[in-house]
Structure formats: C-alpha cells, structure tokens
C-alpha cells in the first residue's frame, strides 16, 4: 500500500493549490472543523445543477426520475461506505447535530421515562450533550458520565456500573478535542450486554478511516458530509432497521407521509419518514462524489497518512518547544487521530491563532464545542491543529515556524 502523495493530491483542491499570497500558500489545519473540497465534488454538484436538476419523489417525468435516482444513489453509496446492511438504514439530515437531536429527542419521548438512564462521556461534543440535557429537563431521564484517564482516554474501570440499568449509551468514536480514538466495538458490546442501545457520534472518525457499523455492533451513528470533503447542509443518521422502525419522526410535512386525511396521517416507510420536505439533493450528489474520492484513495491509506503525520507533528512540536507546549490527549499516534489541541507557553489561543494567520496557517482557537471537557483540562480555550489527507510534513514545519514567531512577539 503506497503512501498518499500530497503534492499531487493537493492539485485537486482549488483553495489549497491556489497561487501563494505574499509568498505564502494556504496551510489549512482546521479539518476537524470543516474540510476543504476537491474539484470532483464541486464539479459533480455543478454538473448536476446544469444537466440533471429536478424534483425528487414528486413527479413522473424523466428529469424528475433521474434526480430521484441521483438522491437514492447517494443513499446507497453512503450505505456501502460504512457497511450498513441496507440503504434503507441511511437517513439524510441537515447535519450531524440534526441527526443526534433526532435520535435523542424522538427516542427519549417515545421510549424513555423519568429515571431511565443515558450514559455519555466527558469528551462529548455539545451536540451529543445538550439534546440529552434537554430530555433530562423535559422527561427526567438520568445522565451518567464516563470519566477520562489522565492521558485523555475513556476510563472504562466503572463502565459496567455506569451501564447497569442503562437504556442508551451515546458516545463519540473520536474526540474532536483530544483526538482520542475510542474502542467503539468494546463499548457497543458491553452496552448490548447491559441491554442498552448505542449511538456513536462518528463525525470525527468516518472521514478519517475505514468504518464498518456492523463490525462495531452499534445501533446508530451520526456524521456530517462537510467534514469528509462533501458540502455543508447534509448529515447522516444511520440506524439498524428495527431501531429506525421504532423511532418516531420529529418533523412532519411533505415527502414523509404515506397518506393524509382530515382526521390524521400515516407515515411513509423508513427512511423517507424522517425526511420531511424537499431533501438536500444537490448536497447528496456532492457527498456521493466525496465518498468516491475517498474510496479511490482508500480509507486505510487515509488512516495511515494521518497517523504518520500525527507522529511527525507531535515529534516536531515537542522537539521545537519541549515543555513550552502541552499537547492534550494520548501521545501514542496509534491511539489517536490527527487532532492536536495544545497550550503554548502562556499565550492565549486567540493570540496564537492571530499570529499563525499571518503565516496563512488556519487553526481553531476556542472551546471546540466541548466545554465540559475544557473544564476538565482546566483550559478556557486551546489551539487546535487538525490534519487531513491534504496536509504534509511541510505544513507542520510552517506551523512550528509560526509558533516560534508567536513566542518572539510576546517575548515569553
């Protein structure tokens, strides 16, 4: 298996291969936030809009049938990419947050009662915390939390106690702050043994390595198109057929119905019943192209590339700054993805990010929508550099150069 050739690959990304400004090319280290797009995706959407655009699931003419085929084709493509048992298990949502809310809210209202237990972890994104807190307020469900070890992994020592009597385990496959890759298969197996169903927040994992939801033994997962080279405005909820059959839809309207009378309605089959209104047709075409691009690269190669680049980055940052830099999360690249949150000397992350921007290095500064975790790290904010297929050791070298300059400006 050959390594990814970034110099060649980057030519596929218009923003990343654009002419330098002031002698500096764009160095994009914010892919955990959102990814850049290859022209394959841009052109697939453009071509579809120019040549094949029409309504889905509505009309009998050929253009409409072709548009419907494109939308449903994307659903099949997503199913194959994550090894879902059937395309009917793929629900298109507005984004991953929408998918997580659909499950948390609709499942809780239909199946959970006061005192029922949902287990989360301390490293969850707000999107997998707040919907459950809303259900705590509304229904009275109890929330339990898996704590973390000192090096930022899930502390599973008391997992069986936490899962005892639990109805749901909702946990991230990979932390968007620490980079920690969680043992999803083990978590799902133990949850199942305890009688709990599992929702996996896969936003940070699906774009960056092979995904097999059946091998996980999960019941549901959620992820977003825009973090995996696809367009914004589209998320995915995967759920095992019997779970989706038991999940009431949350939004009513056109498309999601089987029949409507003055005295009531009946729902369309799964997954259409969750897709009220006109769906994200153009975005689905874009996601399809993004998955084709990733599969052509090979998800094993994507994972290998990012693991080796993460290793390079940790080594380079540590060699350059020693104790002046604290990189959160596991130090072993085998246990983590390419998300590097760090504290640099006493500099505030906003100041670091501002100075890095002068080098055209894009990093995120802030709480990364994980404020409970930030409190555990005792940080109001961190700098986060996150890697993807189009990043190279050269990018890391410029990051090191820019960080040195930040230290110089502040004279720390």
């Amino acid at each position, binding site marked *: 298996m050959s390594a990814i050739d970034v110099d060649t690959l980057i030519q596929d990304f218009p923003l990343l291969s654009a002419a330098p400004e002031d002698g500096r090319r764009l160095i994009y280290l914010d892919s955990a936030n959102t990814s850049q797009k290859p022209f394959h995706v841009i052109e697939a959407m453009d071509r579809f809009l120019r040549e094949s655009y029409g309504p889905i699931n509505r009309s009998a003419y050929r253009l409409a049938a072709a548009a419907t085929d494109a939308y449903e084709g994307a659903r099949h493509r997503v199913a194959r990419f994550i090894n879902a048992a059937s395309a009917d298990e793929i629900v298109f949502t507005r984004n991953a947050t929408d998918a997580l809310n659909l499950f948390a809210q609709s499942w809780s209202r239909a199946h959970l009662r006061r005192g029922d237990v949902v287990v989360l972890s301390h490293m969850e994104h707000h999107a997998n915390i707040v919907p459950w807190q809303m259900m705590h307020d509304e229904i009275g469900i109890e929330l339990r939390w898996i704590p973390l070890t000192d090096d930022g992994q899930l502390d599973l020592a008391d997992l069986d106690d936490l899962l005892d009597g639990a109805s749901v385990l909702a946990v991230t496959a990979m932390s968007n702050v620490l980079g920690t890759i969680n043992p999803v298969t083990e978590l799902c197996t133990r949850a199942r043994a305890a009688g709990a169903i599992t929702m996996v927040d896969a936003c940070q994992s699906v774009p960056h390595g092979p995904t097999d939801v059946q091998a996980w033994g999960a019941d549901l997962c959620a992820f977003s198109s825009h973090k995996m080279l696809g367009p914004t405005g589209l998320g995915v909820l995967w759920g095992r057929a019997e779970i989706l059959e038991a999940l009431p839809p949350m939004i009513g309207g056109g498309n999601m119905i089987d029949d409507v009378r003055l005295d009531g309605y009946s729902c369309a089959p799964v997954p259409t019943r969750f897709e009220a209104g006109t769906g994200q047709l153009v975005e689905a075409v874009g996601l399809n192209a993004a998955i084709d691009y990733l599969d052509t690269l090979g998800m094993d190669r994507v994972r290998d590339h990012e693991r080796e680049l993460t290793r390079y980055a940790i080594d380079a940052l540590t060699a350059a700054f020693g104790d002046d830099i604290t990189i959160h999360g596991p130090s072993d690249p085998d246990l983590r993805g390419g998300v590097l949150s760090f504290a640099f000397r006493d500099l*505030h*992350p*906003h*100041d670091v990010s*501002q*100075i890095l921007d*002068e080098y055209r290095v894009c990093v995120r*500064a*802030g*709480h990364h929508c994980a*404020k409970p975790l*930030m409190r555990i790290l005792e940080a*109001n*904010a961190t700098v986060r550099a996150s890697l993807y297929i189009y990043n190279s050791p050269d990018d890391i070298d410029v990051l090191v150069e820019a960080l040195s*300059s930040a230290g110089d*400006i*502040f*004279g720390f």
Partner: protein
Amino acid sequence: MPGLEDLYREIILDHYKNPRNRGQLEVPPAVRADGHNPLCGDEITVYVELDGDRVARVAIDGQGCSISQSSASMMSQAMTGRTTDEARALLHRFKHMMSIADHDHSDEPGEEVPLGDLEALQGVVKFPVRIKCAVLAWNTLAQALDSAAS
C-alpha cells in the same frame, strides 16, 4: 509582519504582561459586573467603586487574550478619577473608535475626553474578529455603572 505590529503595540503587550488594577473590590461599597465572550470563553469581572459622582477605584478580574486583558487594564487606568458622565463619554468615544454603533448615543462623540494611550488599541479595528475582545471590559464596565446608578 506589518499588520501584527498594528495589533500588538508595545504598550498593549506591556498592559497584558503587567496588568494594572488587577483584583477584586469589596461589594458593597463597590458594584460588580460580569462579562464573557461565548465564542472564545474569555471571562471578565469589573468592579467599580464610586465616591459621590466620581469613579474612585476600578478593579479587573478574570482571564482572556492579550487584547481583552490589555484593553481592560488601560480602561481601568483611564476611568479612575472621572465623573460618571466623563466615564460614559469615554466609553462612547472608545466604542466609536472600535467602529461599534452605540445605541445610547446617535451623535458623534466629543473630543473633550482624550483617549490617550487607548489610541494604541485602534489597530484592533483592522482585525474585526478581535473587536469583541477589545470592548468586552468596556461593555462590562457600562453594566457596572448602570447598576451603580439604579
């Protein structure tokens, strides 16, 4: 880096590294107000103690980036000893310099209250995402003055 020199002036870095009037004041007689920037997590507490109509003491607590901290430090110095009317006039001038519409005032701010060292923060305007950092302490001070008046 010419752009950055406008932002990170020496006087700003000095106030960041050696913040003036750091700490807390007893409430009462002082009033306190809390401000935070939900985007970056910066938190600030401003204490104001009035002597009649005059700002006798200002204290700043909390943490944040160099711009929010230095702006708070410079503000605490600039406000001390002013009447509340002068304090509000300076607030108005500062927000005008930061290109922020001040709904309490439709008029252009007068020049009777000099900005002094605060002019060093003018470079922030070139970095729009940082304007919120620079005005955090000022908006919090305005809350403190409002609660002192009520």
